């Protein structure tokens, strides 16, 4: 049981690391790869939790997450990036080292906020909850600081990853029905956003957010 717990801890730490890496990465192709890695970490974490609790529906959830987040969504994002011809994010509002510092502050805050949350079960402790919360805040931060619509969407997807991670660590996953629902939402969301990107670019000749905001009046 202890090796299992430390394995989950290791994965949780990697999950947080991936979140930080995504925050600092400005090349879109790398960002998508990082997203896929984060998905892989999430899926294996769920699989370990499934092994620890021996519940069949967590195995199914792990499989679903793996299919969706390692294969399908990254492939969709890559093809979108290729067809829209965006490779780099523009200069972000705040410099990368400053962003890292803000992120660090958020992580400390998240651990503090997670302290009072009591976690049932031995395999996962409150540090994992803190990590999930921290990853959630980091992805929100990433959405704020990015200037192109596509990387904002990746930030949004990372946020969803953190939510699933939090759900797994606090309650051993949500009911199967809800997980299916969320997975479906993610796929549909990607398709709709993909269509929107083409429309936005046709309309504004750019995917940069400030150009769209200019037409807001």
């Amino acid at each position, binding site marked *: 049981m202890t090796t299992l717990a430390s394995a989950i801890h290791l994965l949780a730490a990697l999950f947080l690391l991936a979140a930080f890496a995504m925050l600092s990465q400005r090349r879109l192709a790398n960002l998508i790869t990082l997203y896929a890695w984060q998905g892989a970490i999430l899926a294996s974490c769920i699989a370990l939790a499934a092994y620890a609790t021996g519940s069949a529906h967590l195995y199914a959830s792990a499989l679903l997450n793996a299919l969706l987040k390692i294969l399908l969504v990254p492939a969709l994002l890559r093809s979108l990036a290729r067809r829209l011809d965006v490779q780099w994010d523009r200069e972000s*509002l705040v410099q990368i080292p400053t962003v890292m510092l803000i992120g660090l502050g958020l992580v400390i*805050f*998240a651990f503090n*906020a997670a302290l*009072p949350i009591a976690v049932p079960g031995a395999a996962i402790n409150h540090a994992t909850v803190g990590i999930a*919360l921290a990853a959630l*805040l980091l992805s*929100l*931060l990433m*959405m*704020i*600081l990015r200037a192109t619509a596509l990387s*904002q969407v990746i930030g949004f997807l990372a946020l969803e990853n953190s939510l699933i991670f939090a759900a797994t660590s606090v309650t051993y996953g949500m009911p*199967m*029905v809800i997980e*299916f629902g969320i997975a479906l939402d993610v796929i549909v969301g990607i398709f709709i956003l993909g269509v929107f990107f083409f429309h936005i670019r046709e309309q504004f000749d750019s995917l940069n*957010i*400030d150009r769209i*905001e200019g037409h*807001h009046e």
Partner: protein
Amino acid sequence: MNVSIGLPWGLILSALVLWSALAFASPFTVRFPRIAPFIFPLGAVGALCVATAGLLALHGPPVATISPLGLPGLPFHGRLDALSGFFLILFGLTTVAISLDLAGYRRHEHYPTAERIGAQYHILLASLTLVFVAADSYSFMIAWEAMALSSYLLVITDHLSGATRRAGFLYLLIEHVGALALLAAFAILIAQGPAGAPLSFTFTALHAAHPDAAVAGLVFILAFLGFGAKAGLIPLHVWLPQAHPVAPSPISALLSSVLLKVGIYGLLRVAFIILPTPAPWWGLTTLSIGLMTALLGALSSAVQNDMKRLLAYSSVENIGLITAGIGLALLFSAYGLKALATLALIAALYHCLNHAFFKGLLFLGTGSVLHATGERRLSRLGGLIHRMPQTALLMLIGTLAIAGVPPLNGFVSEWLTLQAFLKATALPRPYLAMGIPLGAALTALVAGLAGYVMVKFYGIVFLGRPRDAQRAQARESGRLERAGLGLLALLCLLAGVWPAGVIALIRPAAHLLSGANAMITTGDLGARVGVGHATYVPWVLWIALGAIALAAILILRVRAARGARRVPVWNCGHPLASARIQDTAEGFGQPIRDVFAAFLAMRRHRPAQDDRVPRYASTIEDRFWQGLYQPAARGFALLFAATATRQPRRIAISLLGVLMTLIGLLVLAP
């Protein structure tokens, strides 16, 4: 004995499969134009299957099923009982006619319209069937929402016009308010049941929940709100006169004939079957709202100038009458008068069926007129009886039926409703026993107004001379359209001359409803009345009508025998031979408009004495717009304006606001 246990479900499932296949195939008719003519007739076959299943379900025992559809662990429950059966018959028969009409309608439409209607229409039919057979709140709500969305898409078929989109939005908005109320009602009921019980959301479990009186009342109010929004009861009726005129006419027919009845079905299902014995105030609320709706609908339809809006308000009126009947039944049920409750229910359900037939007929006929002339305004139509004689004849049957003229079907149900009102003297509370029969007077007023409206409708559209030279070249509608009209006209006639047959269809449903919850008190007063007395006996009426006709013929014969009379030429008071001199829709509605001015919100423009170009105009709005909806809309606009100024325009800053709120909440969390 029960040979038919598997058959009704088999028929329903095959109809569902057929409709799904048709919805899927519709978009491909562009590539394979050869299959296009078969789409809607095949849909009619599905509707026939559903009607047959309903007929089989009426007399068989209730058949429950658990379908393989739904989510893992959450299967859909279905149940076919007499109530579902009755509404499936209503839905199936009306839909056959509408599908036939759509088959003709399809030919006049350009590329994407007919294909889109084909897909959405069949999805709507499938979800309607599911609503009628659903036996748990979860599949009911899913079917309900599927129905709302597909009908919304059908309403906005002509989505390029702003008026259509606005009407569609209003429909969707009211639909959502209603669905939220229903969701709340079901959630409260589920919470009343034992905690953690599996399948606590089935209707059987909800019935077993037995909430106390206050909770049951709350659930009833919520359900009444939700189903009333669908049926078009005041003050949530405003979507009807907006959505009906903009939707394609066959779709208006489906909306009016079937979709409004879904609200009635739901109200009956929840109030009589799921909830325990009703309290008297439920009945009084339903009755008074129903009567107000009926009066308002009749008055508003009398002053309309748009023919589809006129029919939409007339639907409001009819729904009001049906609801008043249900209110009476609830009241009788509350005091344990089972036989009288059955009578009131038979009247209400009979009127449901009749309204589906004649309103479907009128809307389909309006579609033919609209197609032939391209005109919805009554002030531009006229004289179509010469151009479209067959349509005019079928429409005459529809207008006479809705006006409540014997021997057509409208008379029967209005007669039964009046009977039920007059029998309210049996109620054990003196105020109710004396007050409610007064409702009969109001019902009679509404019926009279309905007759007035229909004289106006038919007279202006079909009689006289064309008011607009451009519309004079109208042509008769196609054969398929006339087949649809003819089927409904036949059903109107049949339901009028053979009420015993129709009541045999309704009786199982009415018994199911009144017997499900009504307490049987000692000395059941209803038993003395006997529903048989209230049954309308057609042959007596036929003899009377035949005698009048015979007398008229005889008098004319006698007159003619005296030889030709020679009199000076009379020019019928028409010194000028212009079509403009005929009575107009506005002119015809004027007395009603002035007598009932207090009920209508009217803006008039009268010419001054020295106007060079005198112009007279009046616009009539629903009072509820001024009184309820506009203040509400202004309130929301103010609220949003207040928040919008504080909201920064940059997306990044909005997101930062989200992050800060999240952090703030986490800090505050204990």
